[in-house]
């Protein structure tokens, strides 16, 4: 499905950083570990909540909870704005105003629907587990009926969306390039530490392969 900019996904500041391509939007959603869901509450105030997400084709799935009021508003049909951000590099310019970051971010608007179909619920739960750690969905014990009753997942089409991406070295004013100040980029990575087994892990269970060498995506 093509993604076309609407008035609110049109990027005004640094329009050259816009990436309207659906594949780029999808890749950022897949790589970001978490996202922030924002909506407007009954009193007309902005509200935000972090959660995890997953994508199946052109559908974004959001992990909710029956207890949090946030999801009650969303379940009642609130319009939401979902943002996911990946920071790739710090950009150190010679002058402090020109410092920046190389990043990839997605802003997505829509009205999520609650997932009620059991097959879709199952596929979305698998996708969320896979999103966080590929391989785990085939290993962990499957949800029971009780678990399904407590699980709240939402779906929204990835249609009204935009991506913004910055890459490359710092951009200083010409007269500052000769300054004696180091300038460049510092790549940032999400790396894993050593897996810490649960204190009550049964003896003889090996650390699974998908835990070693984990990286995003």
């Amino acid at each position, binding site marked *: 499905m093509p993604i076309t900019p609407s008035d609110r996904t049109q990027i005004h500041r640094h329009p050259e950083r816009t990436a309207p391509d659906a594949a780029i939007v999808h890749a950022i959603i897949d790589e970001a570990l978490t996202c*922030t869901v924002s909506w407007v509450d009954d009193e007309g105030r902005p*509200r935000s909540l972090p959660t995890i997400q997953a994508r199946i084709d052109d559908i974004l799935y959001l992990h909710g909870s029956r207890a949090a009021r946030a999801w009650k508003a969303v379940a009642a049909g609130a319009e939401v704005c979902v943002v996911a951000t990946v920071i790739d590099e710090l950009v*150190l310019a010679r002058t402090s105003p020109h410092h920046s970051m190389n*990043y990839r971010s997605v802003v997505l*608007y829509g009205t999520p629907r609650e997932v009620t179909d059991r097959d879709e619920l199952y596929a979305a739960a698998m996708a969320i587990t896979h999103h966080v750690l590929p391989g785990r969905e085939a290993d*962990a014990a499957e949800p029971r009926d009780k*678990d399904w009753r407590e699980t709240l997942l939402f779906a929204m089409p990835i249609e009204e969306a935009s991506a913004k991406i910055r890459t490359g070295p710092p951009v200083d004013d010409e007269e500052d390039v000769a300054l004696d100040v180091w300038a460049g980029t510092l790549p940032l990575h999400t790396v894993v530490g*050593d897996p810490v087994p649960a204190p009550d892990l049964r003896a003889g269970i090996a650390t699974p392969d998908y*835990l070693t060498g984990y990286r995003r995506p």
Partner: protein
Amino acid sequence: MTIDAPTPRTRVRRLPELGVYEREQVHAILDEALYCHLAWIGDDGDPRVIPTIHTRIDDTLYVHGSNASTTLRGIKAGVPVAIAVTIVDGIRFARSMFEHSMNYRTVIVYGTTEEVTDIQELSRVFDAITDQVAPGRSADARRPSDDELRQTTFVKVPLSECSAKISDGSPEEPDDDLALDVWAGILPLHTTPGEPQDDPLLKPGTPQPPYVANWRRPGATPA
């Protein structure tokens, strides 16, 4: 100013035992997070969000904008905002798919923005936000001129209505799952720097400062 008792917006309802209202913990999470998600309400009444960077001075949170940004132009003049930061510390593996979780620290700040116009305050905020991202950098980079300061938009929000939610520890599972043949535990996640890349236009012989090679987030445990 202190962080008030939780309001209906900042009281944590899901897993309320995780809610943290202590000021030091809220501050530490804001100081460690590299960026935030800033939400406000558009002219059409729908929510709007941008990722941006922030810094804290005492009990005030400053958020970076730009005079060229239509979005931030919309929020300069005293409008209600929600600011969210999230740090994921690890993935929590339970034996059952349902009980999987993350170890995380998150803060939500609610408030009404005020634009920073005082040139001395702008200058202090500029230093703080530069050091927020790369501690030590503000003393090294060329300082902003008054014109550059005036070209940059910062808005501030008092840290009075805010809450943190912190999840750490081991997976918690029903007893009947503990005997399953599935690995359970924590996979810690860290943000670590790669090899610094010199700017192609770097003046030859300019040494790489130690705060670049040794960069790490404040409070972060080394990988």
